């Protein structure tokens, strides 16, 4: 398994060994569990001089392999910035990001290529990995089945509903052979009913594929419904201010009383944080 480090200096990426001894938010029983994503004192500043903006300030967190971690915060907490840094789409200003394994990313918009069919979109991700043609076709069919879209492979994105497009995007992310899946409010644009069903689907797919997920949302209930752990970020700059473990034995329905209670606590904490900016 490859481990990629992203450090402030020199900019860019370089392969190497996993950093040891991360501080801040981490998985339970940290030492025994393998770490998939580790951020150590990560800062990100956009621009230079007095007009620059500090998006992330000294963020440290670790995500264990197979763990589902939700990041939540008000506007301007740098959630999306954080995912871009982990994905390697952007470089850190300070600190270090290390990721073990392949990373795939999903956005709020599915980002499917409109000139390709659903199957074509999934296949392109396999082609980017240089998978041979017969393997590509077989694997594409399998992945469409995983997201329950077998029979829709020949449809173009505009012929599918929003929820179906997002499932094609999920299949495409899986086609990238990812160990770590970064999700940037992937269900934010969907109606509540579809979102609810996709939560169940995502649960199932993650269990089947043993994926590590870092999931950004501004929906507190969604975070509690999906996450093994919920990390709360402050706004401007983004810092880790709280962390909540979601007990595994819970009934995880979005409307379960346990979900509602924890969501209430987290919402309270978020409001406190927002109020700080109102003064």
């Amino acid at each position: 398994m490859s481990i990629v480090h992203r450090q402030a200096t020199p900019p860019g990426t370089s392969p190497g060994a996993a950093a040891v001894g991360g501080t801040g938010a981490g998985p339970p029983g940290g030492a025994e569990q393998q770490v998939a994503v580790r951020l150590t004192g990560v800062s990100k500043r956009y621009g230079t001089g007095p007009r620059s903006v500090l998006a992330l300030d000294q963020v440290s967190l670790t995500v264990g392999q197979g763990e589902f971690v939700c990041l939540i915060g008000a506007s301007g907490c740098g959630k999306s910035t954080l995912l871009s840094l982990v994905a390697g789409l952007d470089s850190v200003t300070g600190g270090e990001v290390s990721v073990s394994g392949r990373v795939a990313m999903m956005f709020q918009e599915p980002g499917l290529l409109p000139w390709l069919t659903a199957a074509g979109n999934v296949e392109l991700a396999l082609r980017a990995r240089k998978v041979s043609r017969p393997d590509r076709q077989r694997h594409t069919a399998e992945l469409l089945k995983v997201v329950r879209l077998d029979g829709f492979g020949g449809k173009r994105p505009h012929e599918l509903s929003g929820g179906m497009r997002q499932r094609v995007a999920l299949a495409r992310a899986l086609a990238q052979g990812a160990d770590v899946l970064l999700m940037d409010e992937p269900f934010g644009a969907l109606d509540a009913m579809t979102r609810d069903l996709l939560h169940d689907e995502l649960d199932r797919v993650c269990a089947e594929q043993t994926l590590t997920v870092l999931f950004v949302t501004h929906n507190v209930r969604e975070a509690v419904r999906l996450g093994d752990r919920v990390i709360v970020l402050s706004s401007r700059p983004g810092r880790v201010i709280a962390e909540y473990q979601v007990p595994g034995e819970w009934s995880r329905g979005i409307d379960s009383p346990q979900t509602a209670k924890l969501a209430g606590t987290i919402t309270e904490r978020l409001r406190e944080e927002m109020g700080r900016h109102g003064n």
Partner: protein
Amino acid sequence: MATDQALHGLDQLELGPAQPAADPGRIARKAWAAAWPKLLAIALVLAVWELVTLTGWKHYVLKGPAPVLSNLWSQLVHGQLWGIIGTTLQTAVVGYAIALLIGSVIGLLVARIPPLRAAVGSIITGLTTMPSVAWVPFAIVIFGESYQAILFVVILGAAPSIANGVITGVDYTPPLLLRAGKTMGLRGFALYRYLILPASLPAYVAGMKQGWAFAWRSLMAGEIVVPIVGQFSIGQALSVDQQNLDFTSTAAILIVILVIGVVVDTLFSKLDLTIRRRRGLLDPAATA
């Protein structure tokens, strides 16, 4: 599993009812709906033309639609018009093909290499605004009164628009698709081959269409001015008719030029429509 069933049901609901099969009556109605405004417009033009002739304005040269159309008919049936059209279209195809190649390559290079864009980006836009007839004397000075001179004018007319189409297409590739492509691991050539170039296709076709319009104008300008021995073209036919003060033949050939221009433009529009339909960029209600 209950979730699966609910999900499958939701998919079916969201896709809506199946499209009704195409019936031949509907196709005929569509064709008629597209045709009658055009036919009406042509009839109106002919009527105005006939009225002007009836007023006796410039009666010593001006003729009505009937003699012009009958001249066109006899030129098509008995005369050399088909050969003339063939000569001109051949030049058009060769010139346009070279322009397509040159325009595409230059467009890609300029889009890809920032210093090159800074150097020649605005020049390309400037070239599209050059009146094509202005190139003709320049071409004759370099190539003499030759086929090459005409090709040169056609290429200079079309290539800048085509290059601009490529540049616009690359520039307007949606950033979200670029991010998606990069997280997929597409880099360098593969990113262009599988993402940026297909994403540029609509703008490229728009550039090709504009390039054709300019190529056709440039070709007429070149042919009218440059006589080539042994190659009697549409432009030369016009030139000879002008010397003979032959109104009916001049008007007949103008109709030919217009029809060819419209037919090719329609082909490009169809191509554009097909691409947009495949990408879901058409309002289904507007095209039903």
